[in-house]
């Protein structure tokens, strides 16, 4: 990575920013086609740049480009689509594509946690609220983007800041093949005799489940979280709890009781009172 690579990235991001500006919803403008062309060109240029400069020509890199492209395009649609329900669905697509990228990096736990928390819980809640709030018609805040220019400039500056630091990143260290997980093989068969794909799929033998766990990503992430970052973890948990309690406290309204309302009938009896036995 050289500084000229960073400049190429700046140009690519500028292209994407201009495309995004034209794509952001605005009823007065009829240039969405230009924006789409520029946006797709920017994504394509980014992928070509990544494949040329950073490498990633190893096994599975095709999947990387596929899912990275899906993630970026879906993220673009999240902000440019006029209907909020579709925006939320594109968000789901983006989340799943990013989870796939994590699986490619063998970070299965992070991937599935992302899917369970974002795609499975948070975005379902978003959809729930959107469907309840708006059933037909598009209000003005959906068809017209608020401050599109400032948003695009801020996004460009953020991305450019990341790209500027890209020169400091170490070269890609990922070997051409997926590293073989240390598996316990039957007698007379060395681990080298297995093809990499076989072991990666998880060939284990009986009664030795511990060996797998020692190597697993889940265990290592748990170890780090529960030792080095345990205070941060607990604090963030408490913060979430406090915000949840606060949200409930704020949403509870005192409803004035109607003085003319008849006294409620005893529970379990519908409409009329029943004599006890």
């Amino acid at each position: 990575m050289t500084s000229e690579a960073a400049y190429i990235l700046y140009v690519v991001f500028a292209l994407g920013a201009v495309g995004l500006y034209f794509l952001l919803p605005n009823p007065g403008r009829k240039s969405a086609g230009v924006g789409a062309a520029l946006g797709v060109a920017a994504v394509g240029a980014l992928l070509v740049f990544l494949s040329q400069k950073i490498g990633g020509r190893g096994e599975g890199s095709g999947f990387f480009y596929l899912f990275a492209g899906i993630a970026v395009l879906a993220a673009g649609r999240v902000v440019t689509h006029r209907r909020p329900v579709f925006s939320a669905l594109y968000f789901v697509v983006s989340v799943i594509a990013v989870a796939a990228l994590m699986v490619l990096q063998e970070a299965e736990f992070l991937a599935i946690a992302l899917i369970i928390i974002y795609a499975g819980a948070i975005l379902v809640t978003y959809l729930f609220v959107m469907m309840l709030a708006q059933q037909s018609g598009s209000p003005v805040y959906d068809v017209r983007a608020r401050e599109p220019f400032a948003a695009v400039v801020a996004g460009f500056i953020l991305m450019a800041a990341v790209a500027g630091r890209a020169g400091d990143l170490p070269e890609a260290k990922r070997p051409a093949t997926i590293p073989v997980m240390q598996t316990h093989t039957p007698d007379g068969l060395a681990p080298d005799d297995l093809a990499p794909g076989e072991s990666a799929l998880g060939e284990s033998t009986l009664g030795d489940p511990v060996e797998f766990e020692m190597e697993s990503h889940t265990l290592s992430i748990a170890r780090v979280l529960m030792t080095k970052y345990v205070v941060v973890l607990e604090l963030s948990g408490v913060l979430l709890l406090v915000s949840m309690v606060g949200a409930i406290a704020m949403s509870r309204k005192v409803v004035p009781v109607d003085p003319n309302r008849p006294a409620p009938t005893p529970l379990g009896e519908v409409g009329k009172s029943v004599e006890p036995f």
Partner: protein
Amino acid sequence: MLDSVTSWASECSTCVVDFATSQLGVSVILAAVVFGAMQGVVSYSIYFERKIAAWMQDRRGPNRTGPLGLFQPIADGLKFVFKEDILPNHVDKVLFVLAPTLAFIVAFIGFAAIPWGGQLQIGDRLLNIQVANPDIGLLYLLGVGSMSVYGVVLGGWASNNKYSFYGGIRATAQMISYEIPMGFCILVIVLTMGTLRLENITLAQTGYWANGLIPQWNVFLHPLAFLILFITVLAETNRTPFDLAEAEQELVGGFHTEYGALKFGMFFLGEYAHMITSSAFIAVLFLGGWHLPFVPWAQPEATQWYAVLFKMGVLGAKICGFLFVMIWLRWTLLRFRFDQLMRMAWLGLIPMTLALFLLTVGLLYFDKHRSPVWALGGNAVILFVSLAYVAMSSKPITGRQTNMPVISEREFGGSQAEVSA
């Protein structure tokens, strides 16, 4: 010429055999077999649903198509395929088609992580009878299950119909609520077993307690968690008494009111496939998966091909048992009212599973988490306290919703008299 052809043929056949006996080959074959078999099982589970319903209601059930009505699923399937595929004018076209596809796909990909039959020995290789053995198999199933709500919600929303919309909204609220106790039950098992790999969870349940009398199945450690997980699975699969998303008496067909032909068939197959996946999931977590006590073929040491087939049969029988209970409940229980459903999750199941979770954490701290006496005692205490609380409390679980806010004159626009008149 002929020599080259025969040598090529023999090379090809060896490479085919090599592929078929590698883990990848076994995975591919198993995926194809399981996918095909599941579609058959799913369509016949609909047949058995109708037969069991008829048996419980003193009727005969489907008996016209073939002997005992056995060809009924085939006839139903043909009807699904050959009926006119209607796309109503007022629907959102893309999502309307996407929703049943999503429901179908999500219901079927869960099968990938189920350990079907332990290990198979071919030559000197041991192959997992499992399509994929990911490190996070349990979380994978949880994630796939949490995605299953999208089919119902999108179908309900895209139909642009009030009945469908209410079905979708109900399904969302229900699934979000019941995922919480489900997650706690699964956490109890994760804490007890110390692994997320489904194959290892099965293997850890193959031992015995009490001098080889009682198998170490998790159901003997945490029967309460087993029951609550089964209840939440009923809710997640939209089965009675939790089928509010498609309550016929109130919502016509609920989220699938506007669907017909193959698109409705996909919803239908997806629902039953989801039932089967969830049953397999509970069987693996709590009933030892393919393990059957005292039967040598169903032990982890048995790796011959007939033992593997036997283990697959054992897991299949456990799944069928769960399916039967689900069908039985459908034709026995009444549907919950929506506020009862919510109260049961938030005031009943979540506190109980939270207590179970804390119990397991405590047992883990004192290193008693695999001790049946302590775990069972804790479960019994939690169950007893919950029952006592329900019996003592002045608010019954059923009955009228008491905490509904009063609609004041101001909010109602002063037209309350007109409405009541």
